[in-house]
């Protein structure tokens, strides 16, 4: 049998594009992050503009860091390493182009929509449904291109880095689809099909696994390819890398509920999430040790080579973050850390240290190869490394300190059994010096990223006029496999042919042909991810006792629903939670702990994940309407030291009453029992707005607010947490209001879970 060699080239043009995009978006993401850090100490930096508030810009920062910077870095890694590991050019240059330009268009769309308050409000899944559809399309193009390349490969064994890429592609697709199942209520507005507890569960199933399969597995693939390349040594233990891979795939997908400890999530789900999170520690450290031990015998190179420096610190931060993650998932630790800056420090040690440094290590290794020249300045890369490392340390040490301080102050009681710091603002002001240190650390890190960008750009400038395209040779996979091409199934049905058929199957030709496709890993990864997900999701959705019914809980009125959407647009959830945990310090501070049944009409849920400001779950009725008007106009008028930005436009921007009816219609379609109210949403909203507006005037506030957004937001805030205070026999305020306003027919609100 002949084994003729095939000649082929690699598509490095698309890798160069992804490298540039990584640098550009890296600068943007870190600059926006720095701006946000500054706004937390100087809130006036929002300049009274809605597009520049912390609540609207924070999702832009997180999306830019995750999907733009890290995303483009991982695509550069995938496109460069996969072609070489599989000995095949990408399946389709056209699909590579669709992937690159489509992804950049999605990032631009995110940058254009998030500052304008167009958001689903789910962390790392904020983008509205048209962009979600585009993400799905581009991801499919990526998947087809990637799996097509695997199918055409000339290397029989699929190296472990490619396994990590397969896990990324499959799992991100599943996560993206199921967390973004929404019903549109317009081009830029939608409501999720899940509500309350179930929505929270789906979000953190997604959110945690977005970290796992977008920021971890592809970067591990990067590590398993680029670290051996840079060190010029094979990976320390290939067996350990396989165990690392499968352990992560089996364990990661379960861990999401650890983001919801002590919330209204069922206890069993929370415990399951904790257990699997703790188990994750071992494989993660196995991977870290595997990475570091790959440098056995090459440590002297680390002192000389900035690429290896970035990789060593990156892998070390992987180890730190994956030790801390399981620790934070332990309930007693989480009780202290959750909602505090501790989580922010944890995230940034992973994002800046692991993702950032692995990405820049790769970029510095790639730049001379892709641009076929020397790196412009090795010294500048060294400077980048050192100021970046210092920047991370300043950042995380300050914010760890802030987080622990915050958590301890929230739960501190004095000798009389009362909260030591009952006024939330005391716990905010105490953190401001640490926030300034974060600004310093962030500035150093941003400076490093900019220096890196300059270095890469200058290397590009020194490129040759035309790139040399290296032609490679390798035997086709079929000939390498031998028997697969040696047999063809006969069409006749004679005895001899049947014997031939038996021989064909006995020689496992079918299996080798099947093995040529990446079905094996893809199927196993998909099964592992789906089984784990379904084990958690099905009981959460289908066992009624997980979300006990509270008859007193009623749907939001049309105006409250619109006000809730303003709360979402302004990104209030980025600073305020709506979840009182069953912990004494919280019930003392905020009131009765939150129940699962209170959230059955919350689409999307607004539990939040941090408290830069106080929890709002029980804020309804705590203050008069006028307090909210003054507070939103200028927070320092009600809380002198507040770091909340001003929202003066809420007092002048009109309520779009015509948008209310379609939103109520969608909620009704999703099963919210609006009854007759579904026919009179606008009228009801106008009447409630008029009533609140007149009450504001009675309290000494300004007149003429009956058609302004502040009234809708006030209506929503005043409703929060009030339902369970009402006796079940007592009619809802909505019914009373409607009756009083002469609606004629009160809206029929069914109680409880449907």
């Amino acid at each position, binding site marked *: 049998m002949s084994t003729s060699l095939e000649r082929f080239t690699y598509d490095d043009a698309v890798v160069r594009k992804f490298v540039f995009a990584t640098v550009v978006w890296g600068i943007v993401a870190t600059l926006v992050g720095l701006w946000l850090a500054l706004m937390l100490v100087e809130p006036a930096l929002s300049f009274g503009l809605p597009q520049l508030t912390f609540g609207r810009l924070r999702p832009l920062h997180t999306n830019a860091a995750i999907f733009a910077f890290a995303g483009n870095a991982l695509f550069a890694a995938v496109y460069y390493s996969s072609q070489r590991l599989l000995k095949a050019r990408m399946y389709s240059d056209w699909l590579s182009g669709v992937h690159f330009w489509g992804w950049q268009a999605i990032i631009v769309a995110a940058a254009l929509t998030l500052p304008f308050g167009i958001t689903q409000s789910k962390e790392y899944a904020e983008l509205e449904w048209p962009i979600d559809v585009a993400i799905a399309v581009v991801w499919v193009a990526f998947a087809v291109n990637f799996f097509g390349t695997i199918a055409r490969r000339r290397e029989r064994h699929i190296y472990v880095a490619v396994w990590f890429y397969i896990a990324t592609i499959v799992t991100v697709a599943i996560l993206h689809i199921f967390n973004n199942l929404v019903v549109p209520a317009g081009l830029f507005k939608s409501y999720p099909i899940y509500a309350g507890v179930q929505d929270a569960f789906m979000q953190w199933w997604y959110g945690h696994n977005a970290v796992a399969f977008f920021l971890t597995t592809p970067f591990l693939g990067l590590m398993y390819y680029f670290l051996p390349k840079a060190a010029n040594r094979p990976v320390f233990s290939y*067996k350990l890398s396989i165990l690392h891979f499968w352990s992560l795939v*089996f364990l990661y997908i379960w861990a999401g509920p650890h983001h919801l400890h002590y919330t209204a999530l069922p206890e*069993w789900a929370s415990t399951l999430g904790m257990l699997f999170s703790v188990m994750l520690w071992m494989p993660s450290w196995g991977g870290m040790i595997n990475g570091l031990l790959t440098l056995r015998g090459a440590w002297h190179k680390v002192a000389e080579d900035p690429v290896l420096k970035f990789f060593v610190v990156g892998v070390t931060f992987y180890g730190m973050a994956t030790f801390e993650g399981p620790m934070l998932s332990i309930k007693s630790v989480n009780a202290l850390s959750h909602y505090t800056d501790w989580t922010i420090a944890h995230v940034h040690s992973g994002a800046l240290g692991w993702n950032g440094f692995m990405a820049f290590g790769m970029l510095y290794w790639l730049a001379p190869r892709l641009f076929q020249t020397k790196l412009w300045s*090795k010294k500048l890369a060294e400077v980048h490394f050192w100021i970046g490392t210092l920047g991370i340390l300043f950042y995380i040490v300050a914010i760890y300190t802030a987080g622990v301080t915050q958590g301890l102050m929230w739960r501190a009681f004095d000798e009389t059994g009362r909260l030591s710091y009952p006024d939330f603002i005391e716990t905010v002001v105490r953190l401001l010096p640490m926030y300034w240190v974060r600004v310093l650390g962030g500035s150093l890190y941003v400076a490093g990223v900019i220096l890196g960008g300059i270095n890469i750009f200058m290397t590009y400038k020194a490129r040759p006029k035309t790139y040399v395209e290296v032609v490679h040779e390798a035997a086709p996979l079929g000939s390498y496999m031998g028997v697969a091409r040696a047999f063809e199934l006969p069409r006749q049905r004679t005895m001899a042919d049947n014997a031939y058929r038996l021989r064909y199957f006995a020689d496992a030709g079918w299996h080798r042909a099947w093995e040529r496709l990446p079905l094996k890993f893809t199927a196993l990864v998909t099964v592992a991810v789906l089984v784990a997900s379904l084990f958690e999701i099905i009981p959460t959705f289908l*066992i*009624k006792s997980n979300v006990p019914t509270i008859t007193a809980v009623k749907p939001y009125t049309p105006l409250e629903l619109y006000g809730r959407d303003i709360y979402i647009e302004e990104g209030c959830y980025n600073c305020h939670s709506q979840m009182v945990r069953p912990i004494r310090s919280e019930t003392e501070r905020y009131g009765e702990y939150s129940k699962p049944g209170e959230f059955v009409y919350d689409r999307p849920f607004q539990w939040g994940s941090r408290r830069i400001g106080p929890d709002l779950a029980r804020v309804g009725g705590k203050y008069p309407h006028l307090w909210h008007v003054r507070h939103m106009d200028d927070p320092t008028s009600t809380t002198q030291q507040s770091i909340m930005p001003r929202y003066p436009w809420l007092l002048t921007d009109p309520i779009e009453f015509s948008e209310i009816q379609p939103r109520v219609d969608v909620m009704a379609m999703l099963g919210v029992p609006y009854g007759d109210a579904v026919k009179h949403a606008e009228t009801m909203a106008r009447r409630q707005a008029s009533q609140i507006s007149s009450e504001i005037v009675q309290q000494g506030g300004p007149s003429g607010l009956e058609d302004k957004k502040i009234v809708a937001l006030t209506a929503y805030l005043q409703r929060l947490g009030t339902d369970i205070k009402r006796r079940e026999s007592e009619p809802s305020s909505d019914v009373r209001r409607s009756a009083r306003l002469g609606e004629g027919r009160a809206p029929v609100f069914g109680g409880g879970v449907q």
Partner: protein
Amino acid sequence: MRLSDVMSAAGLAFYAEVALALFMLAFVLIAVTVIARANQETFERARWLPLSNDPLSVGEREQSMHGDMNEVKP
């Protein structure tokens, strides 16, 4: 009767333990596969894959020729 009624009556208190056992079993199978002698040759070859097929960059070529990696002066 709805699916949620069936699920609610199923009594799935042991659910987490079943999941844990299933995944532990899968992990043991993978560990056995990894340790199996029959696969050692494949793994050893796979370990070297990243180093087997990439052309040297200009800088590396020069380094291998001159034993030094100088920077291009800006």
